[in-house]
């Protein structure tokens, strides 16, 4: 079907909302509670637009397209309404970007930038909600929460862990864990879906705090090394320190749709661990000593040859690995079968 946004005619799909069609065509409309995965909430009202033939302003995240619809997202009325919403949000918490973990990755900041809001025009009184640092991997700062509800929807409908919810009333409404207990004491399994969904700096990954800003990192997509689900990861790498700083789930991956578990998201310390092996080791008189690759390979190959000649290929056993790549399992079994000449190859599929 054909619709018109800001005088531009575009082809849209049946079932799309105004916001979806606009975003798909590179037209930004500020939005905070809507996310592809958790869907429309119609809460934040930042995405209001004008639609010909409809009274008042419409939330573009919740209005389904009809053929021939004519939409305006950049009139003065619309802009003023959007500005007011974002302005009030900025006033409602400590949205100070300077040391915020989400700086450069914050959708509220994006909206403010888009609308040209330098400072909130209303100043609330003292805002001093408690920080929740009780969780091992997740840091919660309710002062920055805009009550968009994405984390609540994600926890309840996406990962279905059912820990997060809104508690209290009116001005005191805030996100709570279980029966409003500290996150670390709750039944939260720390999958981090809430942190991935949070549009602002209210829920962030603890182990990434202070490690650098989003634009400083190299992003690399790869596959989780833990269980067999094969979740796609986006690793954020600090190239100066050669370290993984943060892990995100890849949203458009058909395997995990951005979801991860506590190990995949936060259990990457082993990669840069000081106990990593960095050089071959040879045991002499019961003690390991460091060796060069030449020496180690020479020893392995000569020992393999001698034992094979004396005791035959079937006195060897090769254990391949369920944790290394296909390519390396292929070369491993090829080595056992062509160099040693044995089919004694197995791995711990059964264990």
């Amino acid at each position, binding site marked *: 079907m054909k619709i018109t946004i800001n005088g531009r005619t575009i082809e849209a799909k049946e079932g799309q909302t105004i916001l979806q069609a606009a975003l798909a065509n590179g037209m930004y409309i500020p939005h905070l509670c809507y996310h592809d995965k958790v869907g429309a909430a119609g809460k934040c009202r930042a995405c209001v637009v004008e639609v010909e033939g409809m009274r008042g302003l419409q939330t573009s995240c919740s209005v389904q397209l009809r053929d021939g619809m004519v939409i305006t997202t950049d009139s003065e009325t619309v802009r003023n309404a959007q500005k007011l919403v974002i302005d009030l949000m900025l006033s409602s918490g400590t949205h100070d970007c300077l040391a915020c973990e989400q700086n450069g990755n914050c959708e509220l900041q994006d909206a403010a930038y888009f609308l040209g809001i330098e400072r909130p025009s209303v100043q609330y009184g003292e805002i001093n909600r408690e920080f929740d640092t009780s969780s091992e991997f997740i840091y919660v700062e309710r002062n920055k929460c805009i009550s968009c509800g994405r984390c609540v929807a994600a926890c309840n409908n996406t990962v279905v862990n059912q820990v997060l919810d809104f508690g209290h009333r009116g001005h005191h409404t805030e996100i709570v864990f279980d029966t409003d207990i500290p996150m670390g004491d709750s039944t939260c399994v720390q999958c981090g879906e809430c942190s991935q969904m949070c549009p602002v700096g209210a829920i962030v990954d603890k182990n990434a705090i202070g490690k650098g800003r989003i634009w400083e990192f190299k992003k690399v997509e790869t596959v989780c090394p833990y269980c067999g689900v094969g979740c796609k990861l986006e690793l954020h790498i600090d190239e100066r320190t050669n370290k993984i700083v943060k892990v995100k789930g890849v949203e458009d991956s058909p395997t995990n749709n951005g979801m991860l578990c506590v190990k995949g998201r936060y259990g990457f310390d082993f990669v840069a661990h000081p106990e990593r092996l960095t050089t071959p080791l040879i045991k002499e008189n019961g003690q390991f000593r460091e060796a060069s690759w030449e020496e180690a390979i020479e020893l392995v190959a000569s020992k393999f040859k001698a034992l094979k000649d004396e005791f035959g290929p079937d006195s060897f056993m090769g254990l391949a690995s369920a944790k*290394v790549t296909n390519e390396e399992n292929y070369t491993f079994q090829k080595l056992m079968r062509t160099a040693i000449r044995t089919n004694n190859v197995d791995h711990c599929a059964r264990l």
Partner: protein
Amino acid sequence: MAGLAASFGSGAMTNDIKGMKDSDVALIIGSDTSEAHPVISARIKQAVKEGRTKLIVIDPKKIKMADFAEIYACQRPGTDVAVLNGMMHLILKNGWEDKEFIVNRVDPESFEALKKEVENFTPEYVEKISGIPAETLEKIAELFGKAKVAALYYAMGITQHTTGVDNVKSTANLQMLCGNMGVPGGGVNPLRGQSNVQGACDMGGLPNVYTAYQQVSNADTQAKMEKFWNVQLSNKVGKPMTVAFDDAYEGKMKAFFIMGENPMISDPDLHHAEEALKKLDFLVVEDIFLTETAKLADVVLPATTYAEKEGTFTNTERRVQKLDPAVKAPGSAKHDWEIHQMIANKMGLSWNYQNAEEIFNEMASVTPSYAGMSYERIGRMGLHWPCPTKDHPGTPVLHAGKFTKGLGTMFAIPFRAPAEMPDEEYPTYLTTGRILQHFHTGTMSRKSQGLNNLAGPHVMISVEDAERMGVGNSEQVKVTTRRGSITTKAFVTKRIPKGTAYVPFHFWEAPANILTNNALDPVAKIPEYKVCACKLERA
């Protein structure tokens, strides 16, 4: 795997992750899904919450998924064949089987044999064996039998038994009986537990097959591979790992080459495994850390982690996905394939791989199910095998219209009890497995202080057993079996039934596999990690 290969002709998860939302009913038996496969558990929970799927959970432990279940049944460990036969008994008795599917897709003689076998498995008989009340089994059979499309999920809770192959064949029997094969939202779905366990199997990391399950004992295959690699090959089926350890223990093996595995935590009866490795003339270990196993080695070769590698993993749903290097390896650590190439060349071969992609292309050219794949085609989203040609879209659902082997085979499976049952001296069932916060032998996850803070070694015991011993949460308990004993913290929980103890196997401080029985399934050679007899004492 051996079980599904016998039933269908292919031993892998039959369906894909995306289709999990399409089941009317899902049965989880022998998988603690939210602990071991959390993201798949989320998919199933989503389907339940959205009202698409009704869930049945059968497990000795009242796992978290049971909270989402329409019906939960607590079975005694090691009674899966009886339970599944009982379900099939009721389905046949009530005429809920898929008659059309059976006529068209199943070997008729095998169906008759199954029918005859399950005749004896009345709900009352099954109750005696499994402890599941007859009326609960009736409800389960009705919900499952009447479902339009039902999926079955299992993990090591089905396979790690001396009857592992029998258990797997029983799941295949049930799914064929109900016509749930070859359709989205159905299938027999073994959830693979390690990032590339499917790939390691596909790549011929097994004693009886080259890549894509091409038999080493088949003369044509041997000739093809000899020509391809330009060497003479052995046609003798090799030893499975568990057998090789027994042989090493008896002094019959001389050298082990271990890549990225830690049998000193993962093997059954660790005392036995340690003795076996110590008797070798030469042990080479290639790993990222000086693991419990590497400490016993003569030579240790430093390798790279997932974050440093280029290559592919094949996930549980047979999707081949790409890994890309993100960080540089520490020191002089090398990729595993580079190490293999150095050894091969030193031993007189001439390998000349420049990168992982060259290896992939060589492998694909001799591997029918990967033949149509390339790094370019795998792209960001991956491809499901079988993908036999360059224009094949990949196969998310196996066995649509026809089984890999033609007609499916059902098997008449009598019930056999586990190798070691509780008795007067060791009155408690011991079962082992994973917890969410750690992975396998802990080589990776135990290096995270945060994960260690979240979960440490423990034994889960029932409230009744805790009260009997006068043990409270976090107090020390000694767990003893005929193989050895460990002392660890008690985790007292209503999720464990009386007379059962559960020990996660990740922890070297209290290794579950000091306790486990190395009795093996006669075909798959898988150890019986899920059942043995123990005694619990206040320590």
